[in-house]
């Protein structure tokens, strides 16, 4: 066997190993999701069976039908939960993005006193686990009377997301060459126009990814929401999952069905936005 054949064979083997590795990784990531979807269609007996039943025998939409039925027929206020989740997530994401854009731009473009300390301080807030703050937050919120309100949760999620959005958006604005905004100003733009006409579109992918992240964080958050919500006024979908636990039983099928309802919007959103996440949009702006 000459060296070329050997090298080619090696390459083939490597790429095969690569694909097998990827497949295994994807299986580990996807299997729980798939299991949730499957479990939402099968009776509890089959879900709890030992050894597990891999191929479902009895599929039905019962859990979904029950979920939307009235109280007493296994129904829960899905529509209200969904509405709460949507209002809270969208609003907190919008605010976190607005602050993140302003902050990220400032960190990327301007020089000011204690810049790096402020930045470090923002990042340090990420090291505190959210759940550790839930008790103090609960006391403050109860004094302010904003427990069980949309406003309260939105505030909490904005605070949770802002450091991350600033950090991510800062990085993207740094990639937009300074020359472009200057060229736009020479071309007749005000500082404000230069931002919206040139820098904002170019940092768009970064802002979109920050948006997805902030949205998913708010959408999936459970720990804080379970402390700060009480009723259908403000309960979000993750907290709603607890409606399926009773004193002695847990309705796994119902819970999985609600989980599927939760996953769908997140998936749809990610799919819509991901095609805008084209990197390398700034190539060609400047030499290089």
């Amino acid at each position, binding site marked *: 066997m000459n060296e070329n054949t050997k090298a080619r064979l090696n390459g083939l083997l490597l790429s095969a190993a690569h694909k097998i590795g990827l497949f295994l990784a994807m299986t580990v990531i996807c299997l729980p999701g798939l299991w949730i979807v499957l479990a939402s269609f099968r009776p509890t007996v089959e879900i709890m069976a030992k050894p597990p039943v891999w191929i479902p025998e009895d599929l039905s939409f019962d859990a979904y039908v029950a979920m939307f039925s009235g109280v007493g027929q296994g129904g829960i206020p899905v529509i209200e939960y969904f509405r709460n989740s949507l209002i809270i997530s969208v609003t907190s994401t919008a605010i976190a993005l607005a602050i993140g854009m302003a902050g990220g731009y400032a960190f990327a473009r301007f020089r000011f006193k204690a810049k790096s300390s402020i930045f470090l301080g923002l990042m340090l807030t990420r090291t505190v686990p959210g759940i550790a703050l839930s008790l103090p937050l609960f006391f403050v919120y109860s004094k302010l009377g904003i427990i069980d309100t949309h406003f309260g949760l939105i505030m909490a999620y904005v605070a949770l997301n802002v450091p991350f959005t600033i950090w991510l958006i800062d990085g993207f604005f740094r990639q937009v*060459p300074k*020359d*472009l905004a*200057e*060229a*736009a*100003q*020479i*071309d*007749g*733009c*005000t500082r404000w*126009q230069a931002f919206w*006409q*040139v820098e904002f*579109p*170019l940092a768009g992918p970064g802002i979109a990814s920050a948006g997805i992240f902030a949205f998913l964080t708010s959408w999936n958050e459970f720990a804080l929401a379970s402390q700060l919500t009480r009723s259908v006024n403000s309960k979000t979908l993750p907290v709603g999952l607890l409606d399926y636990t009773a004193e002695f039983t847990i309705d796994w099928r119902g819970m999985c069905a609600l989980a599927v309802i939760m996953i769908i919007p997140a998936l749809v959103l990610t799919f819509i936005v991901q095609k805008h996440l084209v990197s390398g*949009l*700034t*190539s*060609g*702006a*400047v*030499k290089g």
Partner: protein
Amino acid sequence: MATVSLEKLVKRYGAVEVVHGIDLDVADREFIALVGPSGCGKSTTLRMIAGLEPISGGNLRIGGKIVNDLPPRARNLAMVFQSYALYPHMTVRENMGFSLKIAGQKPEEIAPRVEEAAKTLDLTHLLDRRPSQLSGGQRQRVAMGRAIVRQPEVFLFDEPLSNLDAKLRTQMRVEIKKLHAKVQSTVIYVTHDQVEAMTLADRIVIMRDGHIEQVGTPEDVFQRPNSKFVAGFIGSPPMNLKDAEIADGHVVFSNGDRLPLPSRFRDRVTAGQKVTFGLRPDDLYPAGHGIHSGEDADVYRHDLRVILTEPLGNETLVFSDFGGAEWVGRMLNPRRLAPGEALPFCFDLSQAHLFDGETGKTLRG
């Protein structure tokens, strides 16, 4: 009418002053080149004129009006950046029409002006491409197109050719010169390349450490440099500049080699004075291979040993040893020279320069 006047213009970053009160008057339609080594303040000066950098002191007038605090858009100028700074999310057409769009012009007014500029710069077939699909030279032309579409009173160029390869640079240099002849705007052109400055500009401003060293026509700065710095900066290959001392009517170099002191310098120097002696490579040539015949009275002949040659085809640069240092000479109608070969050289002392050894200022004879 667009004259540009800098009056004691100062730029400070905190406590550090980088431009020290420079004065300059640029006439209407004049092509001015700012040259100097990197860090001399030429780009900062240009950015102050553009309005991208706040002015710390002095006045800037465009068309007679003080514009110190006006934003760039109110100064009616266009700028070509070293990086081109094309908007990557827009096509060439949109890039070129952007300023007009911002100015609120209608699409049907913008289109013909973009087309016209594209025709001038041979960009018509590229109008619908994006900057990322263009080559360096094409991007450069788009950047210029974006500038001329605005029909500004003043063009600013910030080292526009330094990202191009040598051949393209020569080509674009010609294009810029043609463009200036056509659009007849005032141009301020920053470069570190003295060849660009010499070939393009009506007048050259040589800057160093935030000061202006000399302002003059290309001939002026080449033939009558004000200082050792200008003499060494302008001209390629650079002037031979060697430290020496004056002694009994001669210029004496460190190892004792000497050249006769040209008579026009007699009254300007005293014996024992430290000087720098300057001679351009064109004025140091093997006998019979120079611009001049070498028969003039002011030509000093001396045998030199060749260290190294750089053949350029029509001429050869000859490096040789004299006065304890290396000198570059230019040999026209070259013949092949072997390293180590000794041959008679002509020093054309009528073209020699003397600079004060301490201040570096020229000693005019």
